[in-house]
């Protein structure tokens, strides 16, 4: 017999299971409410707040998708997310490598300075950033917006990657150097390949942030065919405000792409995050 069912172990297991189930219910209920509401008629919503819809009512999605600009906006969001995440991850890795593995004067000072940039709310930088972007003719361009996102993501990204690079043992790097690797070689051949988990985390977190960002997208992309999915959804919110189920349908549509990507990428994502070759 490998199992010893003592009362204490059973109770411990029971308490744990209850804890996790409770947390999961708290997490799932709002999502359940969002999804079922999107399929209700207005009167069904009012009389039957949290139950299942009486019949699947798909009109809400027609209202939410009206105009057919969904795909254009989806593409815009994707371009911005891919562009700024790629750029910020790459630049942050370079910088983090210097912070984590090189010695130079004023290192800690510079690192802390960059870290403290995170506390400036983007709200307050909009006006001066807009002035700069106009001067450089980058308003209403993907490049300008990607540049701003990249800058805003940089402090977090550098912090995360520096933190991770520091956990990579010196021995591995020294061994590579013995084999004749240059600094850049160590970076490419050792640091990046070993950073799978951290990189995956960084990409996911940053992509989510860009995908869901509203204020900068609203102000810096002032042309209808440049608008992002979240901007489209927020406009929908102020238009159909009386129709809560239609708003919910819009929110579901805005969320579906992320959840689908997560579901498909989940195995890879979790494996990436947990496959750390590094202890």
């Amino acid at each position, binding site marked *: 017999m490998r199992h010893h069912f003592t009362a204490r172990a059973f109770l411990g297991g029971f308490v744990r299971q209850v804890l996790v189930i409770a947390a999961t219910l708290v997490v799932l209920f709002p999502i359940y409410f969002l999804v079922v509401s999107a399929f209700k008629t207005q009167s069904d919503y009012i009389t039957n707040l949290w139950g299942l819809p009486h019949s699947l009512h798909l009109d809400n999605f027609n209202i939410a998708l009206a105009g057919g600009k969904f795909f254009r906006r989806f593409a815009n969001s994707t371009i911005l997310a891919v562009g700024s995440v790629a750029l910020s991850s790459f630049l942050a890795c*370079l910088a983090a490598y210097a912070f984590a593995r090189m010695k130079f004067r004023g290192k800690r000072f510079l690192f802390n300075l960059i870290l403290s940039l995170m506390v400036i709310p983007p709200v307050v930088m909009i006006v001066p950033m807009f002035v700069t972007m106009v001067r450089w003719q980058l308003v209403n361009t993907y490049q300008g917006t990607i540049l701003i996102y990249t800058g805003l993501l940089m402090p977090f990204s550098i912090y995360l990657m520096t933190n991770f690079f520091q956990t990579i043992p010196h021995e591995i790097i020294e061994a590579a150097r013995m084999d004749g690797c240059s600094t850049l070689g160590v970076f490419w051949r050792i640091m990046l390949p070993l950073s799978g988990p951290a990189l995956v985390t960084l990409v996911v977190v940053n992509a989510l942030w860009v995908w869901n960002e509203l204020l900068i997208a609203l102000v810096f992309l002032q042309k209808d065919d440049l608008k992002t999915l*979240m901007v489209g959804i927020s406009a929908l919110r102020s238009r159909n405000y009386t129709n809560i189920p239609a708003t919910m349908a819009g929110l579901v549509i805005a969320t579906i792409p992320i959840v689908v990507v997560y579901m498909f990428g989940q195995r890879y994502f979790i494996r990436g995050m947990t496959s750390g070759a590094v202890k």
Partner: protein
Amino acid sequence: MRTKKIEPFLFLAPALFVLLVVFGVPIYRLFVLSFQRQSQGKQIFVGLSNYKLIFMDNVFIQAIQHNGTLIICVPIMVVAALLLSILLFERIRGWQFYRTTLFLPYLLPITVVGLVFSYIFQFSGVLNGILNAIGLKFLALDWLGSTHLALPTLMFVIIWKEMGFGVILFLARLMSVDEELYDAAKIDGANWLQLHLNITLPQLSTVIEFFTVISIITMLSWVFNYVYVMTNGGPGNATIVTELYIYLMAFQYNNINLAAAVSVLLLLVTGIFIFLELYLRDRAEVGEALG
């Protein structure tokens, strides 16, 4: 040897360039504006008077108090995320399902989360409907409409959304902890609590520190969207936060100078904290080296 000195800066240069472009001009402008005020269509120098004015503004004082209160979310999130990630790590039945679900809130846009919770927490909303239905009418409170409950409700929603990130971060780190450490401790007869206090906590210290720092910064500077969507600072300024104060000053009250002063202050205060931490850590390291 010469290239060695330049090398770090070659790695840093591209990132610094982008940071300078995006943050440099705005921060410079904010500093200048914080010492000026509007007069007849021009900005004139007024010294520190904007800083005096914001400290005389009780709305601003309320805002920083609320940011301070929000920091209470951080230890709650860290402890809860640690506990959940340990349970998942111990392969509790159905852990793969839970792992997926617990991360879901982190995926959702704040606008979506804020709106959905607004409908749930309104006085005649879903939560109170359920409480009434199961005979707990005395618990059906005005979650968003009362000045005492609005901030705690907001904190619940922030924790709901942000905690999943902690769970995944911690779980990922746990997966890479050397199993032998646990095995050895079990042989020594350590119980569950001792096991995690003595092994898990020290092993996870860097990632816990990372999550804590990021969460504190979130509570100080990245809660605007929650507040804007869920309460707009109300009722009666019960949920106003620094960011919303800045937003109102800059875009509603047309007072960019006070908005700038608050931003500079926020930057300075955080800067001081971060450098204080740096100083203490350096002392600790020196101490270790000597000891």
